[in-house]
């Protein structure tokens, strides 16, 4: 296990390095610079600015100092907002994005698994049809459409919930619904189909023959086996939800990281692009690592470490 973690850790570092390098290349491939705007800047001022941000140096030198900033995790000040460092931006935006993302995942997991399980237990019943109709709709409707609909109906027309911003738990409800519906639908469908398969297994029949309670059979014997595919997609789903938050954060005016991420690219704000990208990728790679660990915990047949002499 320890060996596996070390190995995975090295791979994680390599992955982040590759992502960071690609970002650097792409960043400099886009035409334009941070100082291109509607107003033309005085050439001397621009030269001084470029010198200050070390943009006048050759690319390989820039790349090296960029790598250094990754290792030290200090990306310096933003170009557009010179009085704030990238680290400060991250520290302000990330907790909000994280809160939204995690709440979404939690809601999606809970409601998806419950919905899928009930649907599988009432296979071809009314509940099943209802749940699967919901799932198809949930997968098909993009979250920004749903978000607009929710705001229009629940916030504007009926005035039940606040339409935007991020200040109280009440404010969280609409964005979480908008963001969680898609993943909920996917998880519900997956849970249902894998539960249907697991429920026909001999070990479920055997559990029933033991005279165990239905609750115990479902939770302990069926769900645990049925959740493997859900865990598998959870890693990629996390990525989807985290990137999805950009749009949702925009619609609901949530001051999360998404805003900086998108704005920084438009502005060619190099330090902020680097900071957010590296931070996101590191976070994502770490989440995938957690999912892999969870895999091994759920199914004992999956060995995280290889046998000696095997590696």
């Amino acid at each position, binding site marked *: 296990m320890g060996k596996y973690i070390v190995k995975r850790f090295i791979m994680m570092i390599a992955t982040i390095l590759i992502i960071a390098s690609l970002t650097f290349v792409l960043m400099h491939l886009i035409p334009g610079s941070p100082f291109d705007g509607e107003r033309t800047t005085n050439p001397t001022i621009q030269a001084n600015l470029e010198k200050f941000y070390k943009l006048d140096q050759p690319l390989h030198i820039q790349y090296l100092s960029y790598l250094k900033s990754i290792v030290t995790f200090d990306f310096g000040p933003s170009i557009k907002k010179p009085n704030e460092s990238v680290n400060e931006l991250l520290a302000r935006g990330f907790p909000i994005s994280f809160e939204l993302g995690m709440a979404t995942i939690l809601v999606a997991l809970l409601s998806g698994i419950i919905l899928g399980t009930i649907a599988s237990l009432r296979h071809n019943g009314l509940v099943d049809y209802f749940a699967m109709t919901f799932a198809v709709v949930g997968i098909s409707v993009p979250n920004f459409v749903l978000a607009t609909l929710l705001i229009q109906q629940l916030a504007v027309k009926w005035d039940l919930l606040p339409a935007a911003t991020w200040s109280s738990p009440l404010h969280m409800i609409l964005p979480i619904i908008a963001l969680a519906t898609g993943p909920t639908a996917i998880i519900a469908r997956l849970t249902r189909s894998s539960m249907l398969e697991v429920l026909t297994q001999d070990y479920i029949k055997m559990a029933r023959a033991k005279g*165990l309670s239905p609750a115990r059979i479902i939770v302990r014997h069926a769900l645990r086996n049925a959740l493997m595919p859900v865990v598998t997609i959870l890693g990629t789903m996390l990525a989807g939800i985290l990137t999805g938050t950009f749009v949702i954060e925009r619609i609901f005016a949530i001051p999360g990281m998404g805003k900086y991420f998108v704005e920084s690219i438009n502005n060619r704000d190099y330090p902020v692009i680097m900071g957010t990208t590296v931070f996101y990728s590191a976070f994502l790679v770490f989440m995938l690592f957690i999912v892999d660990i969870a895999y091994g915990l759920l199914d004992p047949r999956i060995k995280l470490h290889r046998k000696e002499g095997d590696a």
Partner: protein
Amino acid sequence: MNKHQLDHAKEQIKERMDEVDKSLPVGTSVMQKNRKKTKKVRSDIKVLQVNNLQVSFRTYGGEVEAVRGVSFNLHQGETLAIVGESGCGKSVTSNAIMGLIPQPAGIIKNGSVLFKGKELTSMSKSQLRKIQGVDISMIFQDPMTALNPTLTIGEQLTEGLRTHKRVSKQEAKQKAIEMLELVGIPNPTERLKQFPHQFSGGMRQRIVIAIALICEPELLIADEPTTALDVTIQAQILELFEEIQQKTNISIILITHDLGVVAKIADRIAVMYAGKIVEIGDKRAIFYTPEHPYTKGLLNSVPRLDLVGEELQPIEGTPPDLFSPPKGCPFTARCPYAMEVCEHVYPFTKAISESHAVDCWLQDERAKALQELS
């Protein structure tokens, strides 16, 4: 034999059939009253009485009558083997006794299952759960799939015990270790912490047996317990059954299509065909003096070492479609001795001896007379 005589005989048979139909509910058999104690069966206590059990499945294609009136008794310490081809209803019978008919497709249409005087078919699910695994246990065919891959052996062993009996974790563990020792698994204490994939097929079947026996049930239903195992392991498992029966005096219903297994451990044999028991009797009676053409066919289709060079004689044809089971004897189409009457009316049960009964028109005196005449 002239035409007049033949017509007369036919008419007589028809009259007799009508009488039988009126007087005898389907499946009620004479054999229940007449039974003989075999060497091993010392007890007169009836653990299980199955009477006219009928089970159907509703499917998109219509209703499948899987079990069509099955009756038998099981005494304490006795092993009854139910044999028959795939799809003859033997597994459905055992599942019905156990209360494991898949819902809502499967329905017990008729009949009763009395376990020590308690009616199982009318019990609620929660009442049944107090019997499942405690008084009646079941062993499944494939040990590779019968154990949950994500739970330790120890947990799967103890959970039944912990659900049904008030025992502490420590006591349950102790009992689990004892059970593993009983079924012959070395190092039981360490093995408890392992998962099913760390055991071989034979070992897993031993574990399945240990799980089935941990609450000390009085009836064990083994649904093809050796089919998925190779021959040497088969023999070991069968010996284990015999050993356990000697120790605990448990009653066993053994579902199988393997006559070799039956010959080894059964006391009595019930031969099932198309949802009915067509012949039931002591092991010796069934093996040495089979009366039903189907039983004879089954025995003929078993390879024998003493008949070198002779070809096997399979039973031609396939069992009838149970969507619309035949009115008469279901074996008619494949039966080399079939008569016209067989097609129209199901034969009544004839007791050949105290411990041997058969459902076949050939046993009727008039049929015998007819055969001689022609």
